[in-house]
């Protein structure tokens, strides 16, 4: 069984401890929700797991695990259109499958979009970043506030994509969101993060968005 393990992971920005002694095991087939205040260290934790930034201490065991995701603000190349941006990510992954790129664009509702990325709205940028994240068929999918800026159709399509991704392929998904409905609908387990520390990890089986909010407020 594929899993990602973190032991004693810490990170400082200057004098500030952004993450302290993080111990966490992420297992395949499970969607994890990461919940925490602004500045709690969610994005930093995601970046460390994705290998984008270096940790200051501890161990991250994600050997042979292909990671992809949407972290921070959506980004892509301004002079390219949606399809070209997806094809570029494909070449980064040393593969070529134009049909799959078109299919992914269809899934996020951008198949007809011919304009360049610089003319995209925030929602369209987000949709493209989601398509990019799914495109490389990762073992671990990391999504940092994926539904912010999406319209109702976009949110619904995104949720369907995550569900089918996990069901079909037994992958690991880590989602951070301030929208407890996303967490409630998509996640199997919730990680509560506060001031760089994991406060609690709970199962999300039958928790409603209000339950999650209350639970978070209670531990804080």
């Amino acid at each position, binding site marked *: 069984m594929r899993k990602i393990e973190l032991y004693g992971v810490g990170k400082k920005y200057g004098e500030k401890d952004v993450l302290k002694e993080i111990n966490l095991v992420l297992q395949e087939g499970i969607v994890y929700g990461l919940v925490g205040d602004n500045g709690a260290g969610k994005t930093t934790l995601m970046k460390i797991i*994705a*290998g*984008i*930034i*270096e940790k200051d201490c501890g161990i991250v065991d994600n050997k042979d695990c292909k*990671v*992809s*995701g949407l*972290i*921070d*603000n959506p*980004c*892509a*190349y*301004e*002079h*390219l259109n949606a399809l*070209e941006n997806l*094809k*570029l*990510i494909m*070449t*980064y*992954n040393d593969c*070529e499958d134009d049909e799959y790129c078109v299919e992914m664009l269809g899934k996020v509702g951008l198949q007809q979009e011919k304009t360049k990325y610089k003319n995209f709205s925030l929602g369209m940028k987000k949709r493209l970043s989601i398509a*990019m994240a799914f495109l*490389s068929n990762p073992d671990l999918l990391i999504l940092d506030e994926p539904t912010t800026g999406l319209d109702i159709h976009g949110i619904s399509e995104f949720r369907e994509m995550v569900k089918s991704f996990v069901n079909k392929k037994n992958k690991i998904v880590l989602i951070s969101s301030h929208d407890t409905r996303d967490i409630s609908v998509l996640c199997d387990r919730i990680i509560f993060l506060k001031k760089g520390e994991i406060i609690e990890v709970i199962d999300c089986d039958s928790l409603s968005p209000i339950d999650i909010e209350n639970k978070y407020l209670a531990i804080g």
Partner: protein
Amino acid sequence: MKKIIYELKKTNYIKMLLMYTVVLVAGNLLIQIMYNSNSNSEILEEKKMYEEGLEANDEELNELFKKELVIIDYCIENNISYKSLSAITNLEKNKILVPVVLILIVICRCKSITVENENKTWILLKMYIKEPRRIWVMKNISGVCQTLVMLGLFVVIALLYGTLKYQSFENIKLIYDESRVVVGNYTGDIVNMLSSLTLKAIIYGELGYLMVMCIDSKIVIAGLWLIIVMENNIYNLLSSYRISKLLPFEYFDTFENLVDRNIQQIFVAILYMLGFVIVIKYASLKILKKSLDGGFRWKM
């Protein structure tokens, strides 16, 4: 190959090339205005101008004017067009565009780094390519392709413009040598110009690529533009100091007069260029690795 094509596409290289082509064509137009072919009456006027110039008390100028007068007389006697223009002479005259070509090459080289800063896409490279060496190789190969295309375009446009305008490939140059006029050609001048242009394109391109990783691109481009324009002054200023051996200006001078230099001087210049490029490449790989690890946070 696809990676290289996309590397060029994402920097909007085609648009840059179009702009570059427009600049070169405009430059050629300017050269045409400056060096228009002389009719008989214009030659006589020019002769009169040189004769009047002889009255000045500047010995160096007088010497130059005398030589030009001998060449003009030779042309009138032998019914040869003075300052005849052809595709080849047009290419030689294009040497005044070299600083512009160099700075545009530098801008293109810098663009491969600045495009990632502007679009905040380092995170994509880090996430999907992971290995800094692969990113570095990709960017360097595309950089070499860019430089070669731009150098090639410089030659092609100059020759094409010259051919269309003058419909001649004549390669004749009248030279005043030991009190007589001899017929030579522009081949040596062109070899000198193209070899020094290539060397400078490599050195300045690599320097720009390295510097833009650490410093704001506008400062890098402005700084290199100043150096390109002032390189002769800098060379003269530093030529008596030991440090000039470490700077590229002395070797630029070797390539600018390549035809007249001996094998040893050319060998030293090539060796210097190789050493310079290796050092810069190594430094750029180290900085790229450091940047991708979050070491240079202001750029990431």
